[in-house]
C-alpha cells in the first residue's frame, strides 16, 4: 500500500484526501491467478521425453567413421575431392572442427541425395546413427542465437493497431513494402527503417488517434482509468526522486475545483499508463510516464485541456521506438553469455508468432505474475492462442509466404490462353489455400494433411475451375476431392499458378519449388551465366520435355535437373492456372523417374512417393516455421532444435500444435544470446 501511495504522489503529485479515497478503491497490484486455457494432458502436450539427450552421445568411432569410409571418401577425399568437400578426417577432433562441411553432409544424407544413385546405399539404421553423431557433435556449441532489434512489419503494425486502439484503419497499407529475408518479412535484418517510414509512422499515429477520438465510445474507454493495474510496482523501475510529472498542483488547492482537476490528471495518468503498457508490451517505467505526462502538463498550461494532452501522449507512444520495435534487452554485463527472455518478451514473441499482433490481456497478466514461463501454462496458452481467430495470421502471413501464394496478387496470365484467370478466380485461389491451412491449424490436424488431404475449400468459381459439380454461391465450403486427381497444397491452383509463367507451366520452377518448400532440399544455383529456362515460351509440353532432357544430358545441369524436372513433369496435368488438362497439344505425359529410381505416372503417384518419408516434409516445414517465428536466418547451431521439433511432432501424429509447442519450448525461442562486443549479431 505504501508503494501505491508513492506511485500516486509520483504520478500526479496531487490528490490530497480525495485522491487517496480514489486510490483506495483501486485493486492492489498483485495479479489474480488466471485460469489458463483448457485442461490438458501432459503426456500428449509436453514432450518430456529427453531420452535422446540423456543417452550417451554417439561416438565418432564406429558410427561416423565407418559410415564415412564406406559411403563417402571414395569421392570426397584426396587432392581434388568431389564438390570441393574432403571428408577423409584423421580423427574425431579434425572431423568435429570442420563445421562448415557438416551442414552440407547432413542435408545431403538426410535428403537421400548422397550417396548418389548407383553407389552402395546405407541401411536406414546406419544413416540414423551417423546423422545422430553429426547433430550432436559437429554442429558447434549450443547457441540460442540473437535476433536483431526488429521493427513491426506491415501486417504486424496493422494488427497491433487494431488490438491496441480498436480502430479499423489499416495505416500500414500505405507504408512501403517490407523486404524479405530467407523468404519471410519477419526477418529483423532486412526490416530497415528509412526516413520515409518515420514520416509514415508519424502520419499514421496521428490518423489512428484522430480516428479514435472521433469514435466517442472508443475514446471514452481509452481515456478512462482502467479497472485495475495488475503490474507489480517493482516492474516500473525506480521512481524519480522528485515529482516529475505534473508539478505545482499540490495540496494547496484542496478546494472542489482543485480536487476535480486533480482527478482529471489522475485519470490521464492511468489512462496513459495503461495505453503505454500495452503499446510497449511491458510495464512502462515511472520515468517514461513522467515524460508522457509532460504532454498533459503542456496542454493544461496552454488551455487546451487534459484530453488534448492525452491525445498527444498516445500519438507519441505510437511513434516511440518501444512501440515500433520489439525490444529485447540484454541482462546486465557479467551475466551468462545467454539468458532466458523475461515473461513480457516471451509473451511478445508468442503473440507475434501466432497472431502477428501484440499479446492480449491474458498473456499480459501471466507475464505480470511471472507465470508464463511455466511449461504447463505456456503450453495451455499456445493451445488457446491457436484456437483464437487471430491465429488466422499464420495462414495469411506464414503460409502465404512459405507457399508463396502471396505472389498471386502480382501474377499475370495471357488472357487469350487463360481466359478464366480473372480477379475473382485469383482471389478464390488465395482463399482456398488460406482456408485449408487455417483448417489444419484450427482443427489441429496432422500437417501431412497439407500434402495428402483429399479435401479442400471452394466456392462456385473455384469449383467450376476444378470441375467439381454442385457447388453454388460465392461462399467457401469444405468439399471432398476424392476422384478429382487432386490432394493437398501441391494441387492447389494457387501454388500451381505462382510456380508458372504468364504463358505456360514451368516444370523446372515447380520442381524447384517442391524441393525447396516441401522436401527442404536447397537447389544449387545454376552455373554462372546460365539463368533459368532457355526454352521456347510457346512450346508444347513435349517440346519442353525434349528441351529439358537436353538439360539433363549436360553434366553441370544434370545434378539438379534430374531432381527438379521429374517432379515438375509429374504436375503437368495442371496448366499454368492450375486447371486439369489431359492434353496440351499432345496428350500430357506426366510420368517421370526420380533420382532414387522410383518411377511414377501422374500427380497421384508422385504425391504418394513424396509422402513416403514424412519427416523430410515435416523437417522442412519446421525450418520454415522456425525462420518465421525467430525472425532470423537459421544457422548450424539450430539444426538440433529442428530435429527435436520434428521428432516431437512425429511422436504426436504430426499434429500442427505439436510443432508449435516444441518450437515455442525450444531454446532459440525462449533464450537470447548476449551481444559480445565486436562480434556480429
Amino acid at each position, binding site marked *: 500500500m505504501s508503494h501505491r501511495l508513492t506511485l500516486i504522489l509520483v504520478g500526479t503529485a496531487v490528490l490530497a484526501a480525495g485522491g487517496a479515497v480514489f486510490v483506495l478503491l483501486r485493486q492492489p497490484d498483485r495479479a489474480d491467478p488466471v485460469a489458463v486455457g483448457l485442461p490438458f494432458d501432459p503426456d500428449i502436450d509436453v514432450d518430456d521425453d529427453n531420452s535422446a539427450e540423456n543417452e550417451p552421445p554417439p561416438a565418432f568411432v564406429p558410427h561416423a567413421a565407418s559410415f564415412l569410409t564406406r559411403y563417402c571418401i571414395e569421392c570426397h577425399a584426396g587432392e581434388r575431392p568431389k564438390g570441393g568437400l574432403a571428408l577423409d578426417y584423421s580423427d574425431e577432433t579434425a572431423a568435429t572442427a570442420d563445421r562448415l562441411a557438416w551442414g552440407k553432409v547432413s542435408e545431403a544424407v538426410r535428403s537421400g541425395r548422397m550417396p548418389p544413385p548407383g553407389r552402395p546405399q546405407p541401411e536406414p539404421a546406419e544413416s540414423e546413427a551417423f546423422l545422430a553423431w553429426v547433430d550432436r557433435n559437429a554442429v558447434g556449441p549450443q547457441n540460442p542465437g540473437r535476433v*536483431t532489434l526488429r521493427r513491426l512489419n506491415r501486417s504486424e503494425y496493422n494488427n497491433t493497431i487494431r488490438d491496441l486502439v480498436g480502430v479499423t484503419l489499416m495505416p500500414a497499407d500505405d507504408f512501403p513494402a517490407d523486404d524479405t*529475408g*530467407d523468404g519471410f518479412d519477419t526477418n529483423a535484418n532486412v526490416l530497415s*527503417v528509412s526516413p520515409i517510414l518515420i514520416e509514415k509512422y508519424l502520419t499514421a499515429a496521428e490518423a489512428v488517434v484522430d480516428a479514435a477520438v472521433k469514435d466517442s465510445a472508443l475514446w471514452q474507454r481509452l481515456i478512462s482509468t482502467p479497472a485495475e493495474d495488475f503490474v507489480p510496482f517493482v516492474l516500473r523501475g525506480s521512481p524519480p526522486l522528485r515529482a516529475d510529472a505534473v508539478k505545482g498542483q499540490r495540496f494547496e488547492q484542496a478546494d472542489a475545483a482543485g480536487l476535480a482537476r486533480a482527478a482529471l490528471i489522475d485519470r490521464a495518468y492511468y489512462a496513459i499508463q495503461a495505453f503505454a503498457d500495452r503499446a510497449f508490451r511491458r510495464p512502462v517505467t515511472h520515468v517514461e510516464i513522467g515524460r508522457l505526462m509532460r504532454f498533459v502538463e503542456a496542454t493544461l498550461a496552454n488551455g487546451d485541456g487534459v484530453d488534448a494532452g492525452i491525445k498527444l501522449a498516445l500519438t507519441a507512444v505510437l511513434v516511440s*521506438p518501444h512501440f515500433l520495435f520489439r525490444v529485447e534487452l540484454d541482462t546486465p554485463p557479467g551475466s551468462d553469455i545467454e539468458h532466458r527472455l523475461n515473461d513480457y518478451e516471451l509473451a511478445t514473441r508468442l503473440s507475434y508468432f501466432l497472431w502477428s499482433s501484440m499479446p492480449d490481456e491474458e498473456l499480459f497478466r501471466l507475464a505480470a505474475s511471472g507465470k508464463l514461463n511455466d511449461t504447463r501454462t505456456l503450453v495451455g496458452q499456445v493451445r488457446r492462442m491457436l484456437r483464437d481467430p487471430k491465429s488466422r495470421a499464420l495462414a495469411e502471413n506464414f503460409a502465404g509466404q512459405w507457399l508463396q501464394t502471396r505472389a498471386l*496478387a502480382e501474377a499475370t496470365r495471357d488472357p487469350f490462353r487463360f481466359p478464366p484467370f480473372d480477379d475473382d478466380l485469383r482471389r478464390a485461389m488465395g482463399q482456398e489455400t488460406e482456408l485449408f491451412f487455417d483448417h489444419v491449424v484450427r482443427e489441429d490436424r496432422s500437417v501431412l494433411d497439407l500434402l495428402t488431404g483429399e479435401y479442400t475449400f471452394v466456392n462456385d468459381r473455384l469449383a467450376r475451375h476444378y470441375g467439381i459439380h454442385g457447388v453454388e454461391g460465392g461462399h467457401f465450403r469444405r468439399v471432398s476431392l476424392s476422384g478429382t486427381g487432386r490432394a493437398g497444397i501441391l494441387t492447389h491452383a494457387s501454388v500451381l499458378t505462382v510456380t508458372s*509463367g504468364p504463358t505456360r507451366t514451368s516444370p523446372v520452377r515447380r520442381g524447384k519449388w517442391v524441393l525447396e518448400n516441401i522436401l527442404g532440399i536447397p537447389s544449387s544455383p545454376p552455373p554462372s551465366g546460365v539463368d533459368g529456362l532457355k526454352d521456347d*515460351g510457346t512450346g508444347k509440353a513435349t517440346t519442353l520435355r525434349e528441351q529439358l532432357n537436353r538439360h539433363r544430358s549436360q553434366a553441370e545441369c544434370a545434378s539438379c535437373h534430374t531432381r527438379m524436372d521429374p517432379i515438375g513433369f509429374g504436375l503437368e496435368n495442371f496448366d499454368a492456372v492450375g486447371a486439369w488438362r489431359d492434353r496440351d497439344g499432345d496428350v500430357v505425359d506426366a510420368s517421370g523417374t526420380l533420382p532414387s529410381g522410383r518411377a511414377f505416372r501422374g500427380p497421384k503417384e508422385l504425391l504418394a512417393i513424396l509422402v513416403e518419408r514424412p519427416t523430410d516434409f515435416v523437417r522442412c516445414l519446421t525450418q520454415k516455421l522456425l525462420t518465421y517465428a525467430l525472425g532470423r536466418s537459421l544457422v548450424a547451431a539450430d539444426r538440433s532444435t529442428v530435429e527435436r521439433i520434428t521428432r516431437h511432432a512425429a511422436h504426436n501424429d504430426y499434429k500442427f500444435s505439436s510443432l508449435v509447442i516444441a518450437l515455442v519450448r525450444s531454446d532459440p525461442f525462449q533464450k537470447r544470446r548476449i551481444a559480445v562486443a565486436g562480434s556480429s549479431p
Partner: protein
Amino acid sequence: MISSSLTRRAVLRGVGVSVALPLLESFGPAQAKSETATPPLRLAFVYAPNGKHMADWSPTTEGIKFDLSPTLRPLEKVRESITVLSGLCLRNATAGSDGPGDHARAMATFLTGVRPKKTSGADIRNGVSIDQVIAATIGRTTRLPSLEVGCEGGKLAGTCDNGYSCAYQTNLSWWAESTPMPKEVDPRLVFERLFGDRVRGNSDSANTKRDRDRRSILDFVAEDAQDLSGKLGKADQRKLDEYLTGVREIERRIQQAQPTVAVGKENLVRPTGVPENYQDHARLLADLVALAFQADLTRVATFVLGNDGSNRSYREVGVSEGHHDVSHHAGDSAKHDKLRAINQFHVAQFAHLVERLKSIPESDGTLLDHCLIVYGSGIRDGDRHDHDDLPILLAGGGNGTVKSGRHLRHPAGTPLCNLYLSLLGRVGIRADRFGDSTGRLAGLDG
C-alpha cells in the same frame, strides 16, 4: 516571367486520374531568389530491368550525327537533349567469386558501384547510392531530400535471385550500407508526400499547431531512443540509428520554413491509386517527379520502371510472355522482336519524362536545361547477364555542363561510376572517388 506563369495550370491526364497542378511557380525557388540566379541542378536516375537487346539499342554512329537506333526512336522529339553513353561497365555486378545472382547484383550495384554482400537475410550490406550521396548535400534545402518512386514495389513472397536477399533486387536507392530507401509505387501516396499539407486545406494556424505538436512528439521519441541506445548490441544499435536519423530528418523538415503558397484546394486533385495500365502508371509517376522538380520540393529522384529480373508481361505492346523469360532469348529472333518492343516501351516512358521536363519553362530556358537524368540498366544483354558496355543515356543540359545530342563511346571497361563522379562535381561535391570509379567521365561538356 513569374507573373505571367502564375495563371498557368498544367493538367496531368491518365486513365481515371487527373491531377490539376497548383500554381506551380509560386512554390518555386525563383520567387525567393533573384531572377538572374541560375536555377538549381536537379538529378534523377531511371532504371529499366533485364538489360536491352543491344543490336537494337546501340547507335551505329558516334558523335553529333548519331543515328537513333530502333529502341531509341521514342526519343526523336528530344534527341538534342540526349547523350547516349556507350562502353560503361559495372565491374561489381559480375559474378566474381559470388556465383549466380546477376539480377540482384545489377540492381544493387547500379547506383552504388559496390559489390553487395551475398546473403539471403542476415547482415545485408551494399554501398550508399549516388542519389543519396547527392541528396545528403543538396537535399538539405528542399522539403524532401530525395524522392524514390517505381512501378513495382517489394516482392510479395518467395526468395529472390540465387541466394541474394530480395532487398537487393527491389531497391535502387541506398541511404546507408544496410538501409535501402524503399520506393513509393502508389501515385496517390507520392502526391500526398509532396503536397499533403496543402491538400488537406488546413489553415496556417492549424498547420503551425500541428507542427508544434509534431516537434514535441519527436522530442519525446528522440529521448526514448536515447534511453534505449547504449543498452543495445551493435546490430540493434544500427537499427536504432536508422530510426533516430529518420526522426531528425522529419524534425529538420518541420523546422524548415515552408514556402507558403496560396493554392486553392480545387487546384490540387490527388491521384486515386495505382492505374491498372502500366503506361498510365509510369507516366503519372514521371509527371510527379517533374512536378516535384518544378516546385523545388526535391532535387534528387530515382524512378524504377521495373525491378531487375521482373517477369511482368507487356500486353500493351503485344508481349504476353514475361519480360525475364523473353530476355533469355537464346538468339531467337521472335524473342528479339518482343524484347525490342519492351525496350522501346521503357524508353518511351523515359521520353515522356524528358519531354515533360522540357515543356516546363524555367528561368531563361526549360526545366530540362537544369536537369541531368540518367537512364539505364545494370545488365547489358539479358540472355548473357553481362555488365559491360551497358545501355546508358543521359538527358538534360546540367546547367550548361553537358553538351547533349551526341553518342559518346568510352573505352571498354570505363566504370559507370566515372559518370557519377562527374555528376558529383556538377552539384559542387568534391570527391575523388565514387564506387569503383577511376576518374571523371571525359567529354561530357563537349
